[in-house]
């Protein structure tokens, strides 16, 4: 059998998994990652839901997946050109390489919503308004502290930051933030004894495996408070605390709460790198800006261009379990395509 060359764009969860799968099926794979290190967004997560596995453990697994002689890893490079030439693809990297490939897998993932765009929540304006990713960094460092070094006692968690929000330009639900909020609320109470944690939500979307059970545990075992109302604005009080405003829609009255720290549950957006690749390669995107698969049911790994495939959260918000499954399915699609091609 002829050896096929496949290029995988993006060295996060999806890209690493698909590269490993393809290499074990006999393909020669070039994996291009824009950052100096592989791992993508998982690098920013200390612990993962549902079982609070260390993010590092997933990175280790993925790195073992790509530890294969048939995989060439190019880090610190983006794609600067992609063209189809005589049945194969020619890809230029920002480092000046030109790589020929029989198939391309796009695994450009997601970017976290830049929370400063929701100015009314005060990110980068007030001290102690942080994002879910910032909180993971604090967990990694081993302590949750305010900018003045004190330990916060009252913490507000704001759901749906940049998701389900026409004003942010994102109509879709990012799907992972609710369970992230519940996970982080529990963790806060573990880091800070007697911390009071309040989650402000529009709907609790607990659709994944073990999510609802964790939600229940947060109420029963950890005393996390859940208030049904979208936070309209955050302001700073004269004593340098933060004031949250919402409507407690179930009580039918406005509610305000003074807290020491606010954690914004930033949503997921199509990555900027993915948008560049889509423009370069003429790949269709949906109204949500993510890549639009050729078929929602039977072709979620297929693009509008023959030989170009999708893996992972560049097509829609996905958790790690779903991303790995989607990447494996992408590998199967690529192998089928290459067999037919010969």
């Amino acid at each position: 059998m002829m050896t096929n060359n496949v290029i995988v764009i993006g060295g996060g969860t999806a890209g690493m998994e698909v590269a490993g799968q393809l290499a074990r099926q006999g393909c020669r794979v070039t994996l291009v990652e824009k950052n100096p290190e592989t791992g993508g967004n998982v690098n920013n997560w200390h612990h993962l839901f549902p079982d609070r596995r260390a993010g590092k453990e997933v990175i280790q697994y993925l790195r073992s997946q790509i530890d294969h002689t048939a995989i060439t890893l190019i880090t610190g490079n983006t794609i600067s050109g992609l063209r189809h030439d005589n049945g194969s693809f020619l890809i230029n990297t920002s480092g000046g390489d030109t790589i020929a490939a029989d198939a391309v897998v796009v695994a450009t993932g997601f970017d976290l919503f830049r929370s400063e765009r929701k100015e009314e929540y005060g990110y980068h304006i007030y001290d102690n308004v942080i994002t879910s990713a910032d909180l993971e960094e604090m967990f990694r460092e081993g302590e949750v502290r305010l900018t003045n070094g004190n330990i916060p006692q009252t913490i507000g968690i704001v759901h749906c930051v940049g998701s389900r929000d026409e004003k942010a330009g994102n109509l879709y639900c990012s799907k992972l933030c609710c369970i992230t909020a519940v996970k982080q609320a529990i963790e806060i109470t573990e880091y800070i004894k007697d911390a009071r944690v309040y989650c402000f939500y529009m709907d609790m979307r607990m659709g994944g495996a073990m999510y609802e059970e964790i939600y229940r545990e947060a109420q029963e075992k950890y005393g996390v408070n859940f208030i049904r109302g979208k936070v309209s604005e955050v302001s700073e009080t004269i004593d340098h605390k933060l004031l949250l405003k919402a409507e407690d829609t179930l009580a039918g009255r406005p509610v305000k709460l003074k807290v020491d720290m606010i954690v914004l549950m930033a949503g997921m957006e199509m990555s900027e790198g993915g948008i560049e690749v889509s423009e370069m390669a003429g790949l269709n995107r949906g109204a949500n800006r993510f890549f639009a698969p050729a078929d929602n049911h039977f072709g979620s790994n297929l693009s509008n261009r023959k030989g170009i495939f999708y893996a992972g959260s560049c097509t829609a918000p996905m958790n790690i379990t779903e991303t790995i499954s989607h990447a494996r399915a992408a590998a199967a699609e690529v192998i089928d395509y290459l067999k037919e091609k010969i």
Partner: protein
Amino acid sequence: MDKFGFTLSKARVIDLDSNDRSIAEYILRNEPSFSLCIECGCCASTCTAGTYTPFSLRELQILLKRGENEKVRTNIGKCMLCGKCSLVCPRGVNTRNIIELAKKAFKNQETHAI
């Protein structure tokens, strides 16, 4: 002297079979974004009128949709049309127009013009 016998109290149930949805239907015909509310309460949270009086645009909208119009009729005048609710609405509901249309519908209903 005590009265004996039964007293009739109106059932608390929202009776969707008999409630009058004509106001909601009128608003919806003229302002399709009326259908988009997800009850997040952001409008009521930011509302100055709602801070001091029992006025919640979120509540009034759902009451209209259920045909429970009386509370809306007596409370809708509290809105000062400042428009903050439309600035925060994540669904892009044209809140100001809904208030205007509701007022108009109530007025028309009084004059049997709806």
